[in-house]
């Protein structure tokens, strides 16, 4: 029993280190990529190529005065950042990084991740409501309606996928996609399950963007309208933890997309050895596109965002679901 315990503790430490390291160095990636997109260099002076910049930010954020302004609901104010970070880190548990590199081989891994995904929205709401700031309350109202609107298409596309591969266990799902890249769900399912799978992939990617309040859908921190949205009253590490939570969510989203559609740790060509390297390559490619989208597109108008989901994404994912069901029924 003990080596199972040791294995779990080792995995837990690994996951937290992975989440924290990712949060720090994704900030660096974002600032460097933003810099180069905007024809400037980005952090360069702090360490070689600015690599120590996240460290400097981390040290500064930690050493800032933790301000709990009066008139604020102290419990909610303090709990909120954790409620955004902890679910994100928890849902790393079921992500299969490699062949045996999954912390817990949970049968309902996908369901658990979606359960945690909806908790972090609660964290944002509590944070904004707790900080008794008009801008934050407006941001809270937006974040709730945005996340409800975008969770439904995400679940529908996932259900269609689960129906096609009839397993909720991420490990099994990835092993089903063995063989070359034509075995990945993105391509295999278009022929075997439903021709709409590439569109389902795009819908899943957009909803993932909206779930983590990124890029064209960043309603939580609508910088130029709601000052700093939900994070207006947070200073120092409170804001730092929110930041880490946001980046952890992005990593989860990217990891999920790779496992479901792009065949997690499967190598693109059959003779190449599988391994965690492929998983990381695919994941960081998706993260790069997320960062790239953020620095090119302006923010959508709030109601256009809701219309996009209710009137466009949900019908298409429903059609995808029905087509998959019909297709599986026939063959």
């Amino acid at each position, binding site marked *: 029993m003990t080596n199972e315990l040791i294995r779990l503790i080792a995995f837990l430490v690994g996951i937290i280190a992975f989440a924290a390291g990712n949060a720090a160095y994704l900030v660096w990636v974002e600032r460097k990529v933003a810099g180069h997109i905007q024809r400037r260099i980005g952090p360069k002076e702090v360490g070689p190529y600015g690599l120590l910049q996240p460290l400097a930010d981390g040290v500064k954020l930690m050493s*800032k*005065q933790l301000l709990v302004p009066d008139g604020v609901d102290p419990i909610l104010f303090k709990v909120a950042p954790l409620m955004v970070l902890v679910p994100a880190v928890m849902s790393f548990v079921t992500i299969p990084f490699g062949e045996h590199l999954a912390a817990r081989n949970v049968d309902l891994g996908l369901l658990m991740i979606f359960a945690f995904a909806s908790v972090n929205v609660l964290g944002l709401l509590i944070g904004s409501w707790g900080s008794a700031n008009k801008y934050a309350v407006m941001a809270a109202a937006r974040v709730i309606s945005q996340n409800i609107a975008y969770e439904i298409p995400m679940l529908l596309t996932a259900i269609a996928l689960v129906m096609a591969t009839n397993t909720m266990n991420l490990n099994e799902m990835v092993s089903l996609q063995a063989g070359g890249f034509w075995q990945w769900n993105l391509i295999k399912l278009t022929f075997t399950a439903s021709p709409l799978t590439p569109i389902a992939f795009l819908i899943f990617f957009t909803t993932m963007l909206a779930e983590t309040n990124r890029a064209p859908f960043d309603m939580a921190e609508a910088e130029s309208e709601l000052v*700093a949205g939900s994070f207006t009253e947070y*200073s120092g590490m409170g804001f730092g933890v929110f930041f880490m939570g946001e980046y952890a969510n992005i990593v989860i989203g990217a990891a999920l997309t790779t496992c479901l559609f792009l065949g997690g740790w499967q190598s693109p060509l059959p003779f190449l050895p599988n391994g965690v390297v492929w998983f990381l390559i695919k994941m960081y490619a998706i993260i790069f596109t997320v960062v790239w989208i953020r620095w090119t597109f302006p923010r959508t108008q709030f109601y256009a965002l809701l219309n996009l989901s209710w009137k466009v994404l949900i019908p298409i994912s429903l059609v995808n679901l029905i087509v998959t069901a019909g297709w599986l029924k026939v063959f």
Partner: protein
Amino acid sequence: METEKLQSPLVHLAPLDQVLAIGRANSLWPMTFGLACCAIEMMAAGASRFDLARFGAEVFRPSPRQCDVMIVAGTISKKMMPAVKTLYDQMPEPKWVIAMGNCAISGGPFSFPGQYAIVEGADKFLPVDIYIPGCPPRPEALIEGILELEEKVTGSRRWPRVACG
């Protein structure tokens, strides 16, 4: 009585202070708080040619809670003074103030006998750390101000000081 011999301290706190100072100096997040013409030069300093991002200072945070440096860029009128004061008070503790431009230093071109509307200089109600003269000062002057502030925080200067004049 003779001086008593002190043991060397077990826990050296000075290095920790040094690490904190370097961390703070290298990620000074300024507040988007432009009053007048100097704000445009501040934006130009953040833009591609005179990139502030190299020093980790390009994250212009709109909310006072998350920034460390308040760059007072422009003229402070008497109607605006209470707002600037509250903004300063809302900033968490290790905070600094840069008075950018003559208006923020001493009222600049708008201070003359018989003026009724402006506060002559940010240091009348704010503890100013760095003064950047110029009307408006060039973006390089703002970057020099940031380097000066970094030297004030950490005590060591990043780039050799250019002997001017």
